[in-house]
């Protein structure tokens, strides 16, 4: 039997007359990674703020680590660690002092050791003595997360931990998260990136305009969205006609003179496709491989894309 680290029932929140959360149910199993996936403005940060006792919901109930967030907020705060959307590090202090500040504020034994270990684990030892105002974005995020880990929390909230990071720092962050999970920590992660949720999460909930529109394992979700496909562009309708005739399962767009061919993106299916074109002496003007991103998920699950949400 798995126990729940976080459960939320019918969570509601509105700012003035703008509804931000419109009845959300969540159930995060202990020791798992749960990812809340959605575009800007979907209500991700609001959800995190409520689950972490930063703001109160208008309706619904939440239990975190077995404690009710309204009646027992103190116990919840003891159990959790939170890394917000913007690296909340003290810029006038050094990395080491930032960690020491957290140690001083937590009931941590052997604080000096904890600080040294965290600095080493996050590869910050070298810059530990420098003020964090000189740190790069990736270093700040790492320090931010290290500060969250000072009290060794068993439930960690990460609000868009990789937004604005370069690809290398993103990968580092991902491997840190994977290490935490290996230690049995429960992680609640929000992200705008499908690949991030896919990489890290055991379970994904897609949040759109304050509602959860889909929930499941990455595999279950991906089955609901259009998969990887190849797009071929031709110079004339005649060529498009010819290609559409010989490639089964393809969808044509007469206006753009393109042909959409579903596939798994692997080299084998690709060679088959090219061989087939070659066989009939058809050549495409342009060739591109398209992997599904958040936009595709939204289009598939909600019938509208992410920019419409942002504009609303």
């Amino acid at each position, binding site marked *: 039997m798995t126990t729940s680290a976080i459960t939320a029932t019918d969570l509601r929140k509105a700012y003035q007359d703008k509804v931000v959360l419109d009845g959300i149910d969540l159930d995060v199993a202990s020791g798992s990674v749960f990812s809340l996936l959605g575009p800007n403005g979907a209500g991700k940060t609001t959800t995190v703020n409520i689950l972490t006792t*930063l703001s109160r919901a208008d309706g619904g109930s939440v239990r975190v680590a077995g404690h009710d967030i309204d009646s027992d907020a103190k116990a919840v*705060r003891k159990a959790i660690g*939170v890394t917000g959307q*913007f690296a*909340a590090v003290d810029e006038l202090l050094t990395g080491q002092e930032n960690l020491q500040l957290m140690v001083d*504020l937590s009931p941590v034994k052997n604080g000096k050791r904890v600080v040294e270990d965290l600095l080493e684990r996050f590869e910050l030892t070298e810059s530990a003595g420098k003020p964090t105002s000189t740190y790069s974005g990736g270093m700040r995020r790492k320090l931010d997360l290290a500060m969250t880990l000072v009290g060794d929390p068993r439930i960690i909230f990460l609000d868009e931990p990789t937004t604005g990071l370069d690809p290398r720092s993103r990968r580092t962050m991902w491997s840190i998260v994977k290490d935490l999970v290996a230690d049995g920590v429960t992680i609640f992660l929000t992200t705008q990136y499908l690949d991030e949720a896919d990489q890290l999460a055991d379970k994904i909930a897609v949040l759109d305009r304050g509602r959860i529109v889909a929930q499941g394992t990455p595999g279950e979700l991906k089955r609901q969205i259009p998969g990887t496909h190849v797009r071929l562009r031709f110079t004339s309708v005649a060529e498009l006609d010819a290609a559409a005739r010989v490639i089964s399962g393809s969808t044509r767009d007469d206006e753009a003179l393109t042909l959409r061919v579903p596939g798994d993106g692997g080299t084998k299916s690709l060679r088959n496709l090219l061989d087939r074109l070659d066989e009939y002496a058809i050549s495409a003007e342009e060739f591109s491989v398209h992997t599904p991103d958040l936009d595709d998920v939204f289009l598939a699950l909600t019938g509208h894309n992410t920019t419409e949400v942002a504009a609303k």
Partner: protein
Amino acid sequence: MSAQTVMLRRNFKHIARNPTSVFNAVLMPIVIMLMFVYMLGDAFDVGVNYVDYATPGLMLLAICYGLGATATSVNSDMTKGIINRFKVMDVSRGAVLTGHVVASVLTNLVAIAALVGVAFALGFRPNASFLDWLGVLGMVVLLAFAAGWLTVALGLFAKSPETAGLASVPLVMLPFFSSAIAPADKMGPGLREFAEYQPFTPIIETVRGLLNGTPSAGYAITAVAWCLGIALAGYFWARSTFKKRA
């Protein structure tokens, strides 16, 4: 170590590493004092030596000049997520705010000490007894504390460090429209009434009376009432903003 101590130590580190704001807070009142006393002092006829007249008001001005830095640093804690970080930890929720208030009061005291030192060099000769001086200290600390809470509230409420700094400007301007620089009864109509009834005038008159060796109970009661009122308003505003804003 209590959370309060940790926070206060953090505020002191900030001051030590970014001394410009404190330097401004200490230097500006002295510049203003030199300007008024040295440059314009002879042109004012206030019945007594002008430096004796102006010093009490300038002491309060010194408090107000320190507030800009407090508002900015509280706001930067708020907008950069530092306060949220503390809020989701199991630590005393008021500690971060108390730290800012105490740091602000101590900065004010340094500025006032420097100012009074310069005043003495310019010929300031108060008739205050030791008890009067204690009264002055009490009044100054009370005002610094009250204004400190109000400023913390402003800092929490403002959208950005820039607007937070701007929001403290009226507090800096208020002493000028009181009996700090010139007696209220010499001002034009409208302004005179404003100067008479605004909180800084009774506070300044209280300090002036004490330094003169002739304390006035009437002014003192009004002054203390104003300070307590401002302190409470600031405290509750700060608390509710702190609770609400995430």
